[in-house]
């Protein structure tokens, strides 16, 4: 069972070498063994998981073989789950039990996936390290003195430490790609609108992207096959056809034009990470791709635009938590939520709107034009995910601005809506490092081909933590 992928598990299930109930019990045992050490799960839904596994076994017996049937996975605790506590890792929602399932959850359930429980996060998905959780930080399984990245902190840890075969996340400014790269797993931030946001607690509605973590690129594609598509409950999901993401995944990269944005290889980027990305580009060159330098000239302003647009939308989305219909009152918000609510309120308030919010929306246009222009000459763009390797728990806790700057390479994709796939490329000081691959809107199929080609040459994912 070590290093089992979704693909392997599906084969074993189809051949009846193992049942979904056995698989589920196996993962629940690992969860119980390591969760205290890693704090990855906030809620374990054992009873429901075993029921779902039983019903998956029944479907397997009837010859059903949908991609996630009988596969145990975990959900970031910001996905609304009917009858199962959903906290957003905030004291405000400590006792909240939703009356319905979000669209992604419903699609996963309909596909026969088994939901083991809900994973830890920075409260309301506000953070880059997992330390803003009101229920204690998640630990990096490769070294528990270090952060796993955030805001989806628990989910990549469950995959890395083999507590689940896959886990869901949300990426508003890097919250999937950053923790994926810190935990040696594959993480997808889909195109804005590719996966429905309905029933995922809203952080910043024009940026929130609903994605997931897996061990391998192919597993990641199998998961997206289930969650992607238009949803009448989310008016921002366009009716763009969903391709078969695994069919041509081994197509290779011969003739592919890979852009390398010079603005991402700046002072402040750890030179060891820079070297690792350059080595990855050499792998692609050997495989027949063409490496082309591109420019995204407004990159250095992305973080400023992000912390205006995002906090403005946060202040609006969190206005609904008044403790009347559900949840506790507003005195229960933690420090980071308070900071973002106030910053957002300020940039939207009379006298400051034009100077901050309107200005940010205009620069957002320029950021989008940068990407549009680059994709006229290249098929995909490759960049580092984080300027640094994972840091020690507590290192940035008292300096919100330093924490914000760790998103410097990830927020750009959210502001322009393009998809980004983070994949592992190696280790520095025994801690994981990742790179990200961007493509035009709705190019997830291409991103998987590009990620798959690298992973086949350099399967870094096989290096599991020693717990």
């Amino acid at each position, binding site marked *: 069972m070590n290093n089992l992928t979704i693909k392997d598990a599906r084969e074993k299930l189809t051949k009846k070498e193992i049942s979904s109930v056995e698989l589920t019990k196996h993962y629940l045992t690992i969860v119980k063994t390591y969760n205290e050490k890693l704090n990855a799960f906030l809620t374990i839904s054992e009873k429901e998981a075993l029921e779902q596994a039983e019903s998956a076994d029944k479907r397997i017996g009837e010859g059903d073989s949908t991609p996630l049937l009988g596969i145990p996975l975990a959900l970031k605790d910001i996905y609304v789950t009917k009858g199962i506590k959903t906290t957003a890792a905030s004291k405000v929602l400590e006792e909240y039990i939703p009356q319905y399932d979000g669209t992604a959850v419903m699609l996963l359930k309909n596909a026969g996936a088994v939901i083991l429980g809900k994973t830890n996060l920075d409260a309301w998905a506000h953070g880059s390290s997992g330390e803003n959780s009101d229920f204690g930080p998640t630990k990096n399984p490769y070294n528990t003195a270090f952060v796993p990245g955030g805001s989806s902190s628990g989910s990549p840890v469950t995959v890395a430490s083999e507590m689940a075969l896959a886990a869901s996340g949300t990426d508003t400014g890097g919250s999937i790609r950053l923790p994926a790269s810190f935990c040696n797993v594959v993480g997808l931030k889909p195109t804005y609108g590719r996966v429905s946001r309905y029933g995922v607690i809203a952080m910043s509605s024009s940026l929130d992207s609903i994605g997931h973590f897996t061990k391998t690129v192919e597993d990641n594609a199998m998961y997206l096959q289930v969650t992607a598509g238009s949803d009448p409950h989310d008016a921002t999901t366009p009716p763009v056809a969903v391709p078969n993401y695994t069919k041509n995944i081994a197509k290779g990269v011969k003739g592919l034009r890979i852009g390398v944005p010079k603005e991402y290889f700046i002072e402040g980027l750890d030179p060891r990470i820079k070297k690792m990305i350059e080595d990855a580009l050499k792998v692609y060159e050997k495989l027949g791709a063409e490496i082309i330098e591109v420019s995204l000239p407004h990159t250095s302003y992305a973080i400023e635009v992000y912390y205006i647009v995002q906090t403005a939308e946060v202040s609006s989305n969190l206005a609904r938590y008044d403790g009347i219909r*559900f949840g506790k009152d507003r005195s229960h918000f933690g420090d980071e939520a308070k900071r973002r609510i106030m910053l957002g*309120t300020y940039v939207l308030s009379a006298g400051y709107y034009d100077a901050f919010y309107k200005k940010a929306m*205009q620069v957002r246009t320029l950021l*989008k034009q940068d990407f549009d222009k680059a994709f006229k000459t290249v098929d995909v763009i490759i960049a580092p995910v984080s300027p640094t390797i994972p840091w020690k728990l507590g290192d940035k806790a008292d300096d919100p601005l330093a924490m914000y700057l760790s998103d410097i390479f990830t927020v750009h994709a959210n*502001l322009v809506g393009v998809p980004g796939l983070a994949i592992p490329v190696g280790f520095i000081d025994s801690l994981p490092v990742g790179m990200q691959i961007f493509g035009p809107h709705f190019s997830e199929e291409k991103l998987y081909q590009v990620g798959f080609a690298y992973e086949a040459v350099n399967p870094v994912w096989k290096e599991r933590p020693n717990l």
Partner: protein
Amino acid sequence: MKINISHVAKLANLPLLDSEKQKFETQLSSILDYIAKLNEVDTSNVKDTSQVTGLENILREDKPLPSLSQKDALFQAKTTHNGFFAVKGIFENE
């Protein structure tokens, strides 16, 4: 850049302790100084972008669909009255 924390907290309906106000004022002022860097960018004749999908006026037929029962909708509320949410009066004399 100086931020009036008490005013902003009032606008956002956030109860803050006096000790918190000082801390947030320092933190938010330094963040605002940082993001003010945007003023360097020339945005004359640049249009706003508030969404990136290009979708406009997504409408649907106005027809009732199954939704939460009154009981389900209310079950997380702290106070209810005759099958409704109970809230505090919004006018001072109530």
